[in-house]
């Protein structure tokens, strides 16, 4: 296998049942090419977050395989996890730390050297307009500010794949646009991005490739144009409604 052909993420027949019996992932297979901007769409409870959590071992899949740039996510978890950055849906900032410390400690958890971490933190604080807040404890920040810290944190260890789980939920328009611009820039520089979102226009605007997930199964997957052509739809919203409607009929 040539190095350049190794996909950023390969998920094979991933199955996950929660302890209450809920089948959250029903044999999901997915491949994301390196450098892609990939969108994962689906209703609440479709399995989007479970899929992300299973890749980073926050959920324990029953069976299946996950590879991150060819590294087994479970056997070689150190190498695999080091390549992944996650900005989760729910806020989860360490309340004992300041904005700057959140970034520096995160870098440390991923083994980034101190000097490098400092440079990176300075850069990201500037980029996300957090310089004046750097000494503030994170629990004193507003929701939008916390969101920015979460993005900056996910990027601190220079991941090769970025998981953005509902990144713009509850975020004002201004931050949403500046975030879009920034992640597009990161993507152009080579970062692979997996975005889950409820906002269909967000997915259409940003993603080259889209997968629709429902009831723990991938219902459709193609490029944005490919999907529209296949379902004779004008936009992704129509594709979404057709696919989900079809799934509901089944």
């Amino acid at each position: 296998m040539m190095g350049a052909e190794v996909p950023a993420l390969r998920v094979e027949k991933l199955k996950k049942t929660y302890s209450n019996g809920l089948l959250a992932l029903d044999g999901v297979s997915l491949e994301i090419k390196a450098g892609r901007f990939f969108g994962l769409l689906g209703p609440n409870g479709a399995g989007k977050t479970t899929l992300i959590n299973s890749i980073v071992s926050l959920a324990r899949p029953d069976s299946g395989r996950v590879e991150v740039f060819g590294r087994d996510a479970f056997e070689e978890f150190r190498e695999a996890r080091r390549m992944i950055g996650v900005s989760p849906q729910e806020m989860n900032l360490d309340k004992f730390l300041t904005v700057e410390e959140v970034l520096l400690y995160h870098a440390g958890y991923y083994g980034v050297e101190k000097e490098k971490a400092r440079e990176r933190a300075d850069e990201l604080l500037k980029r996300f307009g957090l310089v004046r807040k750097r000494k503030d404890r994170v629990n004193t920040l507003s929701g939008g500010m916390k969101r920015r810290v979460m993005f900056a944190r996910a990027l601190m260890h220079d991941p090769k794949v970025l998981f953005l789980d509902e990144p713009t939920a509850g975020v004002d328009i201004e931050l949403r646009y500046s975030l879009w611009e920034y992640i597009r820039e990161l993507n152009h520089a080579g970062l692979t991005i997996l975005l889950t979102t409820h906002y269909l226009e967000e997915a259409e605007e940003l993603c080259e490739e889209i997968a629709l997930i429902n009831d723990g199964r991938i219902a459709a997957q193609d490029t944005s144009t490919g999907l529209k052509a296949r379902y004779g739809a004008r936009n992704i919203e129509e594709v979404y409604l057709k696919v989900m409607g079809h799934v509901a009929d089944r």
Partner: protein
Amino acid sequence: MLLIDRPFRTLLSREVLRFTRVWMQTIVPPLLTSLLYLVVFGVALGSRIREVDGVPYLEYILPGIAFMSLITGSHMNSSWSVFDAKRERYIDEVLISPMSDMQIALAYSLGGTLRGLVMGIGVFVVGAPFVGVSVAHPGLLLLIVVLSSFTFASLGTMVGAVATRIDHISFLTNVIIQPLAFLGGVFYSVEMLPGFLRVATLFNPIFHMVDAARYATLETSDLNPYPTLGVIFVLSALAFAGAWWAINRGPNLRY
């Protein structure tokens, strides 16, 4: 893969930062409580008890009270730290990092160990000048207190990871540790107890630790300290195995 790598050291330093940053809650009040014990039991009531095993009463209880403070500090630190991190989900950041579960359990447990040592040594150092106590076997004492602190910090890590409600944490502190500590020979020698209570005390792990610590300090104890050291080693290994298991398998940690 090295156990003590940068990710591990970072989490450990985060644990230390946590309790030093909120020192008004984590260090000062427990230190004050211990000194109150010393004043009330040692000075006020203790004036009625001249000596135990040939040692002046105040001097006899100081190692015990310092030890109680150490146990309280170590288990509370890690249980609250892990529980808080779990409740507010920032533990996820650690769980998805390139650290193994063993490293995570060890970092939380060592953080609690250090807090316990700060508290125990703090009480001892503040109390010692008033009592005029000196340490007979410093090396042995250090080994005993480090292992004991690690044992209770590991227990705290385990309970913090297993707990699903705050009551579970206070159950550990108020229903398990406190009574065992009070009945562990901090304030008295087991020789003073009636036969069946003396036997029951032998099943109290805190008794073994307090007794060994007292031997190392005052050279007086109820049991031979060296087999006791073995017991403490086994207890600390068991407690850490429990902490490791809980970080790996605890409810609401990994789904």
